[in-house]
């Protein structure tokens, strides 16, 4: 099962690498990882989507906590959260398929952000499941290129638990 973990890290040299190194050194999966600044310029937020059973996720959280550059580690799965991903998808079209692709884009509330005589680029955001869905639907038309941002997530209207809470 996929799990989303949100990690506040020091915005310092090497913090990202330390997290990534820990995942590879201990053989944990990373499905996606995204990092960006937070409201505090010296803190970055990483959103990591990983998978594993309860014991594995428990270890991941503990090993993340063990790193000195991590300030807060929050397992978001099972909480009220908002998860979003952005994708840019370039699709080839033939005469006749353009209209259909535009309709699909509308259904998924995407935007066409670039077009030439052979292909067009669609921008779409939403929960990762929605991105998977539009990709599936567009696949038969011929996806030329694609870039996904990886998931970002925040929990909704509740306090993120402090780093030491799980130690009780």
């Amino acid at each position, binding site marked *: 099962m996929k799990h989303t973990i949100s990690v506040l*890290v020091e915005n310092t040299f*090497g913090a990202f*690498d330390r997290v990534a190194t820990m995942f590879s050194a201990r053989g944990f999966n990373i499905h996606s990882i995204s990092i960006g600044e937070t409201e505090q310029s010296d803190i970055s937020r990483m959103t990591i989507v990983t998978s594993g059973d309860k014991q594995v996720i428990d270890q991941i959280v503990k090993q993340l906590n063990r*790193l000195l550059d*991590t300030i807060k580690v929050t397992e978001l799965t099972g909480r009220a959260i908002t998860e979003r991903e952005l994708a840019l998808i370039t699709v080839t079209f033939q005469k006749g398929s353009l209209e259909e692709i535009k309709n699909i884009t509308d259904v998924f509330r995407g935007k066409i952000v670039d077009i030439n005589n052979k292909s067009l680029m669609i921008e779409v955001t939403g929960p990762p499941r929605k991105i998977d869905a539009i990709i599936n639907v567009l696949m038969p038309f011929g996806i030329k290129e694609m870039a996904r941002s990886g998931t970002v997530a925040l929990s909704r209207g509740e306090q993120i638990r402090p780093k030491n809470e799980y130690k009780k």
Partner: protein
Amino acid sequence: MTKKKKMLTGADIFFESLREEGVEKVFGYPGGATIKIYEKLYDIDFLEHILTRHEQGATHAADGYARVTGKVGVVLVTSGPGATNTVTGIANAYLDSIPMVIFTGQVPTSLIGNDAFQEADIVGITRPITKHNFIVRDVKELASTIKKAFYIASTGRPGPVLIDMPKDMIAAECEYEYPEKVEIRGYKPTVKGHKNQIKKAAKMIREAKRPLLYVGGGVVMSNASKELTEFAHKNNIPVTNTLLGLGTFPGTDPQFLGMLGMHGTYYANQAVNNCDVLIAVGARFDDRVTGTTETFAADAYKIHIDIDPSVIDKNVLVDLPIVGDAKGILEELLKELSDKPSQKDWWTQIEGWKKDCPLEYKRPDDQLRTQYVIERISEKTNGDAIVVSDVGQHQMWVAQYYKFNHPRSHVSSGGLGTMGFSVPAAVGVAFANLNRPIVSISGDGGFQMNMQELITAFYHNLPIKFFIMNNCFLGMVRQWQELFHEKKYSFTDLCDSNPIFTNIGTALGIESFSIYKPEDVDDILDKVFAINDRPVLVEFKVSKEDLVFPMVPAGSSISDMIHKRLKPKGDIL
């Protein structure tokens, strides 16, 4: 009160900071990137710099020093090859949780990333094998970085911390002030055990019919040997140690079951599998201890005391974790438990196992055996020596046959299993000046991996007994080949290629002996233990094809334990 600020160079700040941290010994090796520090060192008298013969030697020496003193071991090396030579020593300290601070020189900031002469990304290389590491990018941060490094290395679950210092940072100047406090928001080790958890544990222990203490190196780190011993005695609980835990409980105590695990005693392993409450203290359920985890203490209620939350439920799921410093937690538990239970049936069972399968080897014997030599050393030194073992069969025999009476006396590479550890680690131990006999025990293979540090021992007249258990084989690998790999002794036979060990010792100015008869052991030991002002070397030509028993094959259960060679092997050379 604020201290008066003064302008200092990075090199000055380095030494001022070490002075603040109370550092007395630095193990190191100079080079271009650190030359300014060495220039200053020329006039420094408040600490001793020890020049080893190899940077790996310096890290193991600092490691040995840290293990016996409990202080932070300090290493100073240059950039590039100097830094990469420390990697094994750092990994070794990391896996055994040894507090160390390693200073590496680095090429000037402006050249970093250019594949400059003697550049290596040592911060990148050591990221997964340090508790934390730093590169100094502004000389103003040097003092606070050093303060943090010593704090991180020595608190919580200890470990090595590396500081990479570009050459221009060592030369640059800034106002110096040593910080009084450290504040790292992502690092707040839990020291005090949770009250309710301790109460629950006490209740379980009180109700236990067959309790067992499984004790590891965490109790050494926490200096909790006294508390542990009192706790075990007051509650009449048998104690088994991991390799790194040896010495935390007296080896001669009737409640002691010896080491558990792959080469642990039969009775310790039986006790693990039959106990109803297992109390793990400062131990991490390592695979060499548990074998297959499914059958490890399967029916026991497991209490796990450790300062590192990440070891809880990592390999074996436990019923009651208590995160915190072992010393304090054991003190609290002692207060909770007052009346001494008799546990009569449990002890009868344990005594039965002891009688069924004691630790044994063939004796008397015309062959010289490592087990016998170790037993004699143990007797002669009364269990009071500091024994620094290397890695292999002899290491397991030290663990089985030396009766350690004190903590911080068994120095051994547990987690990484680094051959070549013993000689340099013993050098570090000697610099702790503890006035106790120091015995370095290596196999003939491992001895050759860092024997250059004999020179360091000779130069400083270190009173170390360098013992080589020469079985002409990479014994432990040979053992696996014999038992599990169709007796294909691929590249483990050193008989034709071993040097004449006494010649090596002699060439380096060290008095050296070689014996091969069991009846000569006592004489030679008497002779060398009377020498206390310089190193000596003794080669023991031991039987070539001995095997360490008992043995639980990797990934098996205790029930698969092998006690002796299944078929007679004919002549043992």
